[in-house]
């Protein structure tokens, strides 16, 4: 069975490679490269796969899942400028793809346990653009 929990955080970022000219960055990242950054209301949907526990009837304790998402993602990233405040985005360009990879890296080790796996991380940058990451192939 799949279980999905949603969380939101609002943050600013800029997508630009410091080794490139403004024109090169504009060509690759469009207005996401505007130098002073801009913000999004990110929406995160985390999907776990597992069978309901025969005693509790739950795949995963939702309260614990909420605490994990708050501790690993929302508390550190909400109302922050990712590039300036949240490593590794001082070095890694915070595209939606790279933020999803970082979220996977942070939550997978604390979610995975006997009978439960992290199945998918979906991250909406806007309501019209999102990425899905199902872990290393």
């Amino acid at each position, binding site marked *: 069975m799949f279980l999905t929990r949603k969380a939101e955080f609002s943050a600013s970022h800029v*997508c630009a*490679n410091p080794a490139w000219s403004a024109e090169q960055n504009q060509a*690759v*990242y*469009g207005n*996401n490269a505007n130098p002073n950054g801009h913000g999004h209301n990110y929406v995160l949907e985390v999907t776990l796969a597992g069978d309901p526990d025969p005693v509790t009837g739950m795949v995963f304790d939702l309260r614990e899942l909420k605490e994990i998402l708050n501790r690993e993602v929302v508390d550190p990233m909400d109302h922050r400028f990712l590039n300036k405040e949240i490593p590794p985005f001082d070095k*890694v*360009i*915070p*595209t*939606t*793809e*790279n933020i*999803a*990879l970082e979220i996977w890296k942070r939550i997978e080790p604390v979610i995975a346990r006997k009978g439960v796996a992290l199945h998918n991380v979906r991250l909406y940058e806007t*309501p*019209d*653009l*999102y*990425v*899905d*990451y199902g872990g290393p192939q």
Partner: protein
Amino acid sequence: MTLTSRYRFSASHRLDTPALTPEENRRLYGKCNNPHGHGHDYVLEISVDGPVDRDGQVVNREAMDTLVRQRVLARLDHKNLNADLTEFAATVATTENLATLVRRTLAEHWTLPARLARVRISETDRNSFELEVSKG
């Protein structure tokens, strides 16, 4: 990793097939068979998949938007699907057939390094049609 981008277009259509009698068409398609057609604000979702490149992206957003805009939205937005698209001269303009046309059109003109993975069209908030693109 899969990236999905959502686009919008508004178009009219009428569901009617010459293979059936007028009465049969009315019964089968109901209001969708009304003689002068009707419109929808369609929502198109295009998914691409591939590795995250050195720029931290599955696909260049602008390249993807331009391709979808030029090849799909320009042909469909504010059009009458039955009257303006030769593809629907002999084929019923259902959203199933529209999704098939969009997938075929994108596949024919695909120039992006990421793989076209899925086409999904919502005709209204209450119905949508999804086509996977098989790998390889």
